[in-house]
């Protein structure tokens, strides 16, 4: 699939933004600046960047607890994200949601989600809504190998297939549900085979190769948009960090240093940058300039977050209901 220079650079920029944003979060978390939980996406950037590059601004995504990458790839603002992670009132959710609940309806981001498997039926509903409203919008649903054992996975694939809904189910198989490796949580090694049970195409994709992810996503999104129904894409990838930033030694209780090193050698960002330079699409200098710009944007986001106020205590009681006009 032929991509323009502009598109390739844009995909590179997205992946690197995710990587640098997450690296900064790791640092801030370690310093105690960011409270709560931080489930980082480092190592998996190609999946979000490749899939979202295949989407229109009015398409939908549902995300997971490990959602920063998805929402950045769908266009979320770093300032509002960082402020939310800091728990500030200027954040995406006014400081009421935090890392796992970033949402922006205007960008089609129907929420990161703290419940494993929680986003799948919601994506199905968004796709159903597009069909009811007679638009050609598509919903992309990100979830992990762990969630593929949840009932919502099976219920969602069944509903989407039955009604030929415009959904692309993107399984990020990073081989672990927290600490439990895939061999211990399911009897299959390719989750994509489950697509056959719901009469939809299923495909295994190298989730560390953003161009292959993009290619598969374009095909699946195209099918969905044409009313040909859902697809299950299984992107095999790996999280470099622990399940969350409190997971000791990046998850060495349940995986070896060697295994982590093997996957780090398959870095999706280095892979693309090598390709861009080799193909003479970009020079090292251009890529360094992009990196510098991203650092500046993240610095600005951190400054914005740090300078923002915490919510006033009374704000706890706001937004429980959409409008209080009907209440007593």
């Amino acid at each position, binding site marked *: 699939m032929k991509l323009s220079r502009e598109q390739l650079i844009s995909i590179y920029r997205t992946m690197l933004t995710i990587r640098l944003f997450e690296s900064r979060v790791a640092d801030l978390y370690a310093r105690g600046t960011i409270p709560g939980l931080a489930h980082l996406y480092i190592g998996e950037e190609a999946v979000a960047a490749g899939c979202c590059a295949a989407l229109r601004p009015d398409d939908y995504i549902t995300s997971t607890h490990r959602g920063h990458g998805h929402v950045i790839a769908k266009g979320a603002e770093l300032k509002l994200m960082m402020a939310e992670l800091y728990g500030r009132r200027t954040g995406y*959710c006014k400081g009421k949601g935090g890392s796992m609940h970033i949402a922006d309806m205007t960008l089609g981001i*129907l929420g990161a989600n703290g419940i494993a498997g929680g986003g*799948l039926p*919601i994506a199905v509903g968004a796709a159903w*809504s597009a069909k*009811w*409203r007679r638009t050609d919008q598509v919903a992309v649903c990100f979830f992990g190998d762990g969630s593929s054992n949840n009932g919502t996975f099976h*219920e969602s694939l069944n509903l989407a297939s039955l009604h030929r809904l415009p959904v692309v189910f993107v399984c990020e198989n990073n081989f672990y549900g927290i600490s439990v490796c895939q061999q211990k949580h399911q009897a299959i090694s390719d989750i994509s085979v489950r697509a056959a049970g719901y009469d939809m195409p299923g495909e295994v994709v190298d989730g560390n190769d953003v161009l292959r992810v993009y290619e598969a996503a374009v095909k699946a999104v195209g099918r969905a948009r044409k009313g040909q129904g859902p697809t299950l894409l299984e992107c095999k990838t790996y999280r470099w960090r622990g399940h969350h930033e409190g997971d000791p030694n990046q998850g060495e209780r349940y995986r070896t240093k060697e295994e982590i090193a093997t996957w780090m050698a398959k870095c999706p960002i280095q892979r693309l940058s090598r390709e861009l330079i080799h193909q003479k699409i970009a020079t090292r200098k251009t890529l360094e300039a992009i990196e510098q710009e991203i650092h500046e944007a993240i610095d600005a986001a951190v400054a914005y977050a740090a300078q923002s106020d915490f919510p006033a205590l009374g704000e706890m009681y706001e937004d429980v209901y959409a409008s209080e006009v009907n209440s007593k």
Partner: protein
Amino acid sequence: MREITYTLALNEALRTCMLEDERVVLLGEDIGCYGGIFQVTKGLQAEFGPDRVVDTPISEAGFVGASVGAALTGMRPVTEIMFIDFTTVCMDMIINQMAKMHYMFGGRGKVPMVLRTNIGAGRGTAAQHSQSFHSLFMHTPGLYVAVPSTPYDAKGLLIEAIKNDNPVVFVEHKRLYNTKGPVPEEPYRIPFGRAEVKRFGKDVTVVATHALVLAALEAAEEAAKEGVEVEVIDPRTLTPLDSRTLIDSVKKTGRLIVADEDNKTCGVGAEFAAIIAEEAIDYLKAPILRNCSPDTPVPFSPPLEKAYMFGKDRLLESVRRLMAYA
């Protein structure tokens, strides 16, 4: 005014809203040609087609979650869960998703959907088709909970629920479906959070929900013959709750009887009693009496189920007990 059943009143509300707003779609098990387990959606699939009145698979987490996604993206789904007992298999979608999204997202996104279901024992259907745990939804911030007791309230509250921008758990009652009452032909809305005093009295307040409102009115009729004036309050919505009307009534009567079919422990009745204990204890002339279901699963055997349930007689006895206090 013409009289129609609770079932037909609900059906009219759905039909009215569907005619008026094409964003309103119905989802649920057997709601199409079958008309719904209690016939609430009878005829609607024939009129509006299978795309707007969707017979779903037995897949509650799937279709309730899909309703949440559809509501977030511009639709107004009205989704039927055949019995409240079955909400347990999709509780994540109700409690973690539907109820919390607006708040978690800092006000970004609305979930204007209605989850219709029903409570009530008395049909010999044992512990998984007869429960009345509507208090669970009252307990959950972010949900509105409507509890109609009459055909009139059923229609007006359901239209309001569908037009409301918040997620509403609309709790119907099995024993009320065939009851009849006056219902205007034209559409009307009953605002949430306004209790109705179904009968005025000065001696005892009975706050009752669902079928127990009717039982309380019968008990009040009998008590009147004994010279006791019972005030019967129907909150109509548990969230928002019109606690003002309840408190004012108890300040007047000094006696409170609670009648609700949930289990006694941590049920709706406990909340009503607690409100009065906090806000009006100085006005009480007698202890608060809670009439609720026993803290057991609903038993199957007919004599056991009969003993599990209560109605007019128990409420009348409660009135007499409270009137024994000076």
